[in-house]
């Protein structure tokens, strides 16, 4: 049984039919990426999993348990953590308070978890008492991922972790995603930067205007002509 199983999911944004019957699996221990252009429905898919959006039809199951349409705070309680698009850190809270909020679903924040986050992102240790809204974009992205890790998630949803970051920082962040996965966290990664995403992922799905048009092992997608043209910028 896959850890996350999505079947024939249809989600609407108001009147816009954003997801048109997508199906997707994430197995325990994998990094799976969902790539596609702006507005294809990548974020909508993640929000439907985390409970910020309710599907109109179709199912979402976590370890066999239906979670489609469940309130977001309850999904978080089941061990699903999301680092949302645009970071969405709490700007007027300190870095430490942001990390504490990440552990909210688990009850008390574990100092060992915080140490682990600081080991992954030493920059956050230096800024621990700083108001999160005053940090740079890259630091905020680190905080958003670190905050999600504080929940000690079984499934980590990452929405555009490379957005707005310098190429060097993108390399760093993707290295850390690989480390997090190696430490046992299953990852569903949504990215516009298909090259980086496919470099770390085991498998990938390509989404176009709300439909999954292609799925394969990451290496296979990298060789695929359509993917190379549309998402890897080759002529």
């Amino acid at each position, binding site marked *: 049984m896959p850890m996350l199983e999505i079947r024939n999911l249809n989600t609407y944004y108001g009147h816009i039919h954003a997801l048109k019957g997508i199906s997707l699996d994430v197995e325990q221990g994998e990094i799976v990426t969902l790539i596609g252009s702006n507005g294809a429905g990548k974020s909508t898919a993640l929000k439907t999993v985390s409970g*910020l959006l309710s599907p109109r039809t179709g199912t979402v199951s976590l370890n066999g348990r239906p979670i489609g349409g469940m309130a977001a705070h309850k999904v*978080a309680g089941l061990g699903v953590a999301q680092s949302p698009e645009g970071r*969405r850190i709490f700007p*007027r809270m300190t870095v430490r308070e942001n990390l*504490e*909020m990440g552990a*909210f679903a688990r009850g008390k924040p574990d100092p060992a978890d915080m140490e682990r986050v600081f080991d992954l992102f030493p920059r956050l240790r230096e800024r621990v008492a700083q108001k999160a809204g005053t940090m740079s974009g890259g630091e905020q992205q680190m905080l958003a991922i670190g*905050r999600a890790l504080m929940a000690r998630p079984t499934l980590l949803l990452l929405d555009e972790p490379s957005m707005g970051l310098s190429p060097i920082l993108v390399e760093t962040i993707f290295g850390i995603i690989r480390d997090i996965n190696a430490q046992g966290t299953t990852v569903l990664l949504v990215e516009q930067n298909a090259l980086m995403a496919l470099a770390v992922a085991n498998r990938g799905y390509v989404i176009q205007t709300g439909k999954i048009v292609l799925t394969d092992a990451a290496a296979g997608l990298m060789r695929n002509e359509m993917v190379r043209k549309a998402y890897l910028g080759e002529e």
Partner: protein
Amino acid sequence: MDFNASLFIQYLIIGVASGALIALIALGYTLVYGIVELINFAHGEVFMMGAFLALTVVGLAGLNADSSWSSIVGVALLTLAAAMLFSALINAGIDRIAYRRLRNAPRLAPLIAAIGFSFILQNIGIYWLGANPVTAPTLLPNEYRAFNVLTEWFGLDTRIRLRLLDIGVIGITVPLLAFLTWFVYRTRTGKAMRAVAQDREAAALMGIDINRTITTAFLLGGALAGAAGMIALFYNNAARFQMGFRYGLFAFTAAVLGGIGNLSGAVLGGLLIGVVWALSDGFMKEYIPAWGAQWTPAVIFGVLVIVMVFKPSGLLGEQTADKV
């Protein structure tokens, strides 16, 4: 004419007392606005309900000015707790019945609902204690006493006279403000409230139950209004179904003056308005014979207009300020 320092200090203390009272109410506006961006126009009436319950409880206890000190303090604390609980439940109840259903409706819908509840509560007030002012028993001595603290301790020439009443108001308000600050900044629920105020969706992703957190904000705001209701009852020795209007308006002004959504701003705005109120009601008369209490609302709103012109977000309402 010479500046009368002792008179000024006396009015200043009265101002701080009534300002602390306004601050308690203003915090309710600002807490709720910070978290759901709604001006809760029923808040003044939630305050009035607290005063009415306090009056009823004290009446049932049969207290009067001749009761022993220990029974006055005991009943006062019991009454305070009852008024706080009562107003908290009314405030959270209104949210549960009306505002929660309108959370995703256009802004105007919950606003009109709030105005509606304000009238409903006023009518309940009329049904409860009638349309005329009802007097409260005098529990704290209302007369002025000379406390020559400045003379005795500092050898100053300035003699001040105080009412135990004003000191009592400050004595109840300060611990409540300290408790609220501790709650919002130190407890898990308080931090959840700040998180919801800053980014509701992100807070839900952390596992925070948004509706429960909003209910907590309404409970807290209501409890402070209930405490203020009881304090106002004994401060003015009277309660009336319309008392929530004037206090509510001043408290709302205080919240806006300090920067709506900002807790310290509400306290600062409340104190400022209280002091302006006291000075305009009494002190100014000493120097300008034509001055009187009838000018006070004009002065208070004049201050508001001036602050808004130069700092539209309020005194402490900056982008970096904490909303809840």
